């Protein structure tokens, strides 16, 4: 068996491990195992690659390769290991972005490498696609990261003529691709790199913070496609298979996620134009109306008289790191014979499943978590709905107000419960920037303050009463 055959066989094993992993990640029981299988397959592929011959010689610069890997390892492990759970979505965004960047670099370097051999037009096309998609994913992920990390506003960024400018940049990229295909100029390739970078930024800027999770999933899929394109250029089946798997499953996942928000993908990607107008109109209408607020002690009394309580968590819970206190409160209420469950909206938090992860971290029993539909069918017989850091996912405007940007998104109908306790830091609207009618509902009592403080105070009063 020749060296190449052996290495390709190992690559085949790796590719199969990725398949098994993706399959496993779709079921709660086998998900963690699946991830480890993929990691093992990856290590196998990397080790095998060290023995590969390129252009008829063994790999040059092996010490440099090892040095670069060591740098990557030293940076990635602590970051991935010790960043807070709340910052997970940002991490996924950034690790996706660097992958896109790597794919773009691989494509461009391979082009420089093989240019003197006058590659066929289709090879050039693969390179161009790799550079374009990889770079868009890189700069787009960077902006998504900035939005989630709140380094910049989470609201859609719009400016006059945005669509026209984006159109020009997009067409410019297309024209460049055609020019490079004809002339195969390396200089123009660098221009394409810059233009793609701008395109990624322009593409992500108008997307609102609440939609960023769907966006990250899409960019993830893009990186997969960029990797597949690099695989074509390098002639590597492994890269083609892995990249395409991620690309195809990523697009399907993106669609599933946008369906969970009750919206179509084009609506999420391109609807921000003009949404600012709607949002400002909404807040103007809400001016001058009164809300009812209460102290944590009032809230504790209300809870004490309930026989069934539902807790509706949102991103605010994650920000306040209140998951442990909320679990304690739930336990305390159960001790008093009050039935407690958590209603989890599929897109609560910054990513689907964010709340499940957070509450699982605080040891909330899995059986207490109910998905949206199940929770909604029980809300009418619930005494108190406790909204902790959620906002848009309980906003009745999604069902009532056709002009609302979130119209059509399925929500948790907190307003069906007998009473609503709404924890808020301020009267500021939620991440989507939309006024919430529920705040003005006569059933609703607002408890202002940091969610963790408020919960701690309520817990203390519940314990003593």
């Amino acid at each position, binding site marked *: 068996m020749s060296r190449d055959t052996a290495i390709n066989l190992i690559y085949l094993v*790796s590719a199969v491990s*990725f*398949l098994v*992993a*993706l399959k496993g*990640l*779709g079921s*709660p029981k086998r*998900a*963690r195992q*699946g*991830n*480890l299988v993929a*990691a093992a397959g*990856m290590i196998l592929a*990397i080790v095998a*690659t060290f023995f590969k011959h*390129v252009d008829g010689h063994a*790999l040059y*610069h092996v010490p*440099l*390769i090892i040095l*670069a890997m060591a*740098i*990557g390892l030293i940076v*990635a492990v602590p970051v991935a*290991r010790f960043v807070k*759970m709340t910052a*997970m979505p940002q991490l*996924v965004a950034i*690790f*996706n972005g*660097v*992958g896109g*960047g790597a*794919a773009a*670099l691989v494509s461009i*370097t*391979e082009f*420089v490498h093989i240019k003197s051999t006058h590659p066929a037009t289709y090879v050039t096309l693969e390179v161009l696609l790799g550079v374009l998609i990889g770079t868009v994913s890189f700069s787009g992920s960077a902006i998504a990261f900035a939005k989630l990390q709140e380094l910049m506003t989470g609201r859609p960024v719009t400016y006059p003529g945005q669509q026209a400018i984006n159109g020009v940049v997009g067409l410019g990229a297309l024209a460049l691709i055609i020019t490079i295909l004809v002339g195969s100029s390396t200089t123009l390739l660098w221009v394409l790199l810059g233009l793609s970078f701008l395109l990624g930024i322009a593409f992500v800027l108008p997307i609102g913070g609440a939609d960023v999770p769907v966006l990250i999933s899409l960019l*993830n899929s893009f990186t*997969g496609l960029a990797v*597949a394109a690099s*695989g074509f250029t*390098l002639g*590597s*089946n492994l890269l*083609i*298979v892995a*990249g*395409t*798997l991620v690309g195809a*499953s*990523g697009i399907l996942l993106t669609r599933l996620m946008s369906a969970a928000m009750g919206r179509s993908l084009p609506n999420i990607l391109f609807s921000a134009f003009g949404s600012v107008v709607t949002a400002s109109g909404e807040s103007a209408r809400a001016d001058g109306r009164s809300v009812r607020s209460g102290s944590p002690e009032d809230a504790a009394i209300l809870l004490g008289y309930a026989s069934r309580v539902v807790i509706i968590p949102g991103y605010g819970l994650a920000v306040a790191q209140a998951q442990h206190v909320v679990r304690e409160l739930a336990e305390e209420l159960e001790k008093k014979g009050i039935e407690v469950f958590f209603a989890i909206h599929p897109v609560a938090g910054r*990513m*689907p499943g964010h709340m499940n*992860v957070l509450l*699982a*971290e605080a040891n909330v029993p*899995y059986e207490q978590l109910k998905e949206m539909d199940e929770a909604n069918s029980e809300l009418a017989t619930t005494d108190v709905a406790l909204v902790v850091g959620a906002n848009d996912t309980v906003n009745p405007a999604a069902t009532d107000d056709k002009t609302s940007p979130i119209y059509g998104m399925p929500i948790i109908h907190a307003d069906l419960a007998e009473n609503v306790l709404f924890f808020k830091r301020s009267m500021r609207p939620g991440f989507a920037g939309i006024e919430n009618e529920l705040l003005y509902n006569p059933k609703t009592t607002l408890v202002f303050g940091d969610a963790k403080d408020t919960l701690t105070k309520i817990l203390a009063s519940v314990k003593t009463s």
Partner: protein
Amino acid sequence: MGNTLLQYATVLVLAIFVGIEIIAKVPSILHTPLMSGSNAIHGVIVVGSMLILGAANTNLEEVLGFLAVILGTLNVVGGFVVTDRMLEMFKAKKPAAKAPTSDEVAQ
């Protein structure tokens, strides 16, 4: 347009169908870990980066290849570690789960 291209195209088309088929029914709570896991898998670009740096003849290629290996490694390592951390949270809540917790404290 040789046979090689056709062979790669075949692989591409089959992988598209498998990719779609394999995650067709996933509960929404697993969307995030799945996204994160597939994020780690496209980190396989590190293999491509190694080949690029390993074939580099000029300084420019060396610099670009070096950067690519760093970025690719970040993607692989970060992707797998983050996914594992997420999935750690999904472990079953049984008394048996207490034991590893105390081990972690001991570390």
